[in-house]
């Protein structure tokens, strides 16, 4: 199995926030903590684009590098998790993360920062799988039930994909082939620079690059 990854297709995301709701509901996330959120660029302008953002489970995660108590670990499947018993809530990971994934619950009346909370790829944490302790600290462990993250599985437009990175890349590739554009925007080959003649990148139609100066995705009417 390859690494577990998320992929959000900006061409499909309709900013419904269903993924955010699914995540909150699935893990009983407290008020003020958003493991996932939808970011919209050029909101309200024709051609606006939205993407759903959470922990991207980086292969070289900066949060892991800056943590002073080394509470992060990466599972065999490439999911970045952490031990809340060890976390001191210092917030270094928040500053290091380019996606703003680490969240800190306000546990006291005076805004005392709690232990860090973030997307677990629905893989729980270092407590026994499926236990109450795991649910309370990290949320539901869907991965151990043979399921994929709730946000991706319930996405109505299938903009948000989650699972094996190679499979996601194939799904996205097929989608791009059908609609005839978007290969240059996102995807495994874009991120990891696969050579153009490898079998995994063959068959992708390469669309014309957008004209400079034109607004992305359309023009004002």
């Amino acid at each position, binding site marked *: *199995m390859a690494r577990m990854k998320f992929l959000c297709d900006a061409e499909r995301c309709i900013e419904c926030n269903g993924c955010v709701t699914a995540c909150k509901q699935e893990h009983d996330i407290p008020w003020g903590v958003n493991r996932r959120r939808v970011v919209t660029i050029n909101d309200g302008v024709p051609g606006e684009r939205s993407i759903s953002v959470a922990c991207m489970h980086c292969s*070289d995660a*900066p949060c*892991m*590098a*800056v*943590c002073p*108590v*080394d*509470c*992060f*670990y990466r*599972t*065999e*499947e490439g999911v970045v*998790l*952490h*031990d809340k*018993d*060890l976390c001191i809530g210092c917030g270094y990971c928040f500053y290091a993360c380019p996606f703003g994934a680490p969240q800190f619950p306000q546990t006291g009346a005076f805004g005392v920062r709690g232990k860090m909370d973030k997307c677990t790829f629905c*893989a729980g*944490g*270092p*407590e*026994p*799988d*499926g236990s109450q302790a795991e649910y309370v600290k990290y949320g539901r*462990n869907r*991965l*151990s*039930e*043979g*399921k*994929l993250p709730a946000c*991706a*599985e319930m996405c109505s437009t*299938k903009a948000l*994909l*989650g*699972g*094996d990175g190679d*499979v*996601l890349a194939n*799904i996205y590739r*097929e*989608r791009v082939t*059908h609609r005839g554009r978007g290969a240059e925007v996102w995807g495994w080959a874009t991120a990891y620079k696969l050579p153009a003649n490898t079998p995994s990148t063959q068959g992708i139609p390469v669309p014309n690059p957008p004209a400079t100066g034109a607004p992305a995705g359309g023009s004002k009417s």
Partner: protein
Amino acid sequence: MMKIAGVIALAVGALLIAGCGERPQVVRYKQGTYQGKPDTPPYDAQFKGNRGEWENALATRNQAQNEYKRVQ
């Protein structure tokens, strides 16, 4: 005249090699070593350690995200 030229040459030489002794000022972070509790593989509990079965379950659900396969 020669003296001034010598001083200038010396100054230029010193200026040219001034950067050689500079150290990189970018912090290079090293990955930490996990200090917390050990975690069990996700296929240990419900799938009783059967990794293949677990991977098949995930692969099936992964394909459910591909509507070109799901809806014919």
